[in-house]
């Protein structure tokens, strides 16, 4: 239990995928303009991260490693994740149309998002077991959700203010993102401290 909490906490705060590892920056900057779409995107990311970990971990450990071609990881993972997301979308459209409307366009958008691919590869690199991998992916997804939630709020505030013309658009967004990232750097080492490692 203690280990599970630690893995999730570390993935959410200390190793936040967006703000510390700088993975998945594209949706982070692109879809964070409105809170609704930011939340839709984040929930889709949590979902796809857990699903793709559940699919890629067995492939790596049961198929690639025994055959000595662990180096094919990246290509195989992209292939599998893309196919999986497609399959999930088709199934969702048929069986849970309400959820499909909710996640909508975000599902195909994150098919081979680097954060999704990154979490699968990192699970293998860290040597996590299957359950640990799933926890880590879930934590990474929640970390993404928190980052998106915070940043959508920050952007909303920026937009409704009158600030210099030269900072309009991407400039103010990047500055805000870097300050938010800096604040998350403060969590580094905190998780180890809490759990006395």
């Amino acid at each position, binding site marked *: 239990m203690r280990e599970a909490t630690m893995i999730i906490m570390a993935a959410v705060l200390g190793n936040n995928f967006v703000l510390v590892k700088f993975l998945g920056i594209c949706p982070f900057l692109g879809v964070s303009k409105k809170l609704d779409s930011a939340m839709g995107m984040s929930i889709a990311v949590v979902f796809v991260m857990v699903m793709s970990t559940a699919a890629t971990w067995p*492939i790596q450990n049961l*198929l*690639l490693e025994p*055959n*000595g*071609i662990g180096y*094919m990881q990246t*290509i*195989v993972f992209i*292939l*599998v994740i893309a*196919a999986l997301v*497609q*399959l999930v979308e*088709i*199934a969702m*459209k*048929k*069986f849970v*149309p309400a959820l499909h409307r909710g996640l909508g366009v975000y599902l195909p958008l994150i098919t081979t998002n680097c954060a999704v691919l990154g979490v699968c590869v990192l699970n293998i690199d860290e040597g996590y077991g299957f359950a640990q991998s799933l926890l880590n992916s879930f934590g990474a997804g929640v970390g993404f959700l928190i980052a998106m939630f915070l940043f959508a709020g920050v952007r909303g505030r920026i937009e409704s203010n*009158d600030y210099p013309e030269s900072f309009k658009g991407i400039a103010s967004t990047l500055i805000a993102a870097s300050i938010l990232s800096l604040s998350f750097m403060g969590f580094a080492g905190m998780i180890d401290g809490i759990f006395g490692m």
Partner: protein
Amino acid sequence: MSAFITPVVLVVGIGLISGIILTLAAKFMAVPVDETASIIRDALPGANCGACGYAGCDDYAAALAGDPEGVSPTLCIPGGATVAQAIGDILGVDAEADAPIVAAVMCDGRSHLTRQDMDYQGYKTCASVKQFFGGPNSCKHACIGFGDCVDACQYDAIHICDGIALVDRDNCTGCTMCSKACPQNIIDMIPATNRVFVACSSKDPARQTRDVCEVGCIACRLCEKACKFDAIHVNDNVAKIDPEKCTNCGMCVKACPRDIITLIPKQKKAQTA
């Protein structure tokens, strides 16, 4: 050699299996798409302006396909009679299109005709100025002129000229977006055949209006007397034309001592090039 063959076989195998699964999934879990909806969607202009009252062209098409009797095919204002006819043909129902409408800005307070009470330097949208003591204009019913309507218009049909919004009737499709965007509620929709309107919305008493604007309606009722068709009436200190009775005769325009009743010149028929 096997160092080469194993990865190729594995990756191709995985790809093949994924492909087969996806094909099967697409076949067995296909959701029937309503074909009528997509045909109607093609007939609509695709501007997603929302004038029909639905969330967009897709939504309107789906509603039409789902309930051809209950949903009127004439709701698409930018598309007008042509689109209504097309939808009617697809669904096999009668499409009696409404007369085309255009936007008209009910204010003629150009900058040299009115005053400003303050020098506003905040965020430049009409909606935000409006919340700040009703805006900088001394007439609180006047066009603010920061162009919320210009931003709302998808057809480049409304512009700010000399401090007030002006509608370009050639481009206006009557989608009502500017009318909805205006925080002053001074953009009215009138029939396109109607070329006369009172360009004032001031409900202030005559003295107040005279004080802040050189052209604003002072409710003198001379237009009422001039009109032979009982089409113009003064209510709440401002004259208003009933578009159904108005014949564009222009008598009220001549009678108005403040020159606030506007007559738009007859448009030349579009010339063929």
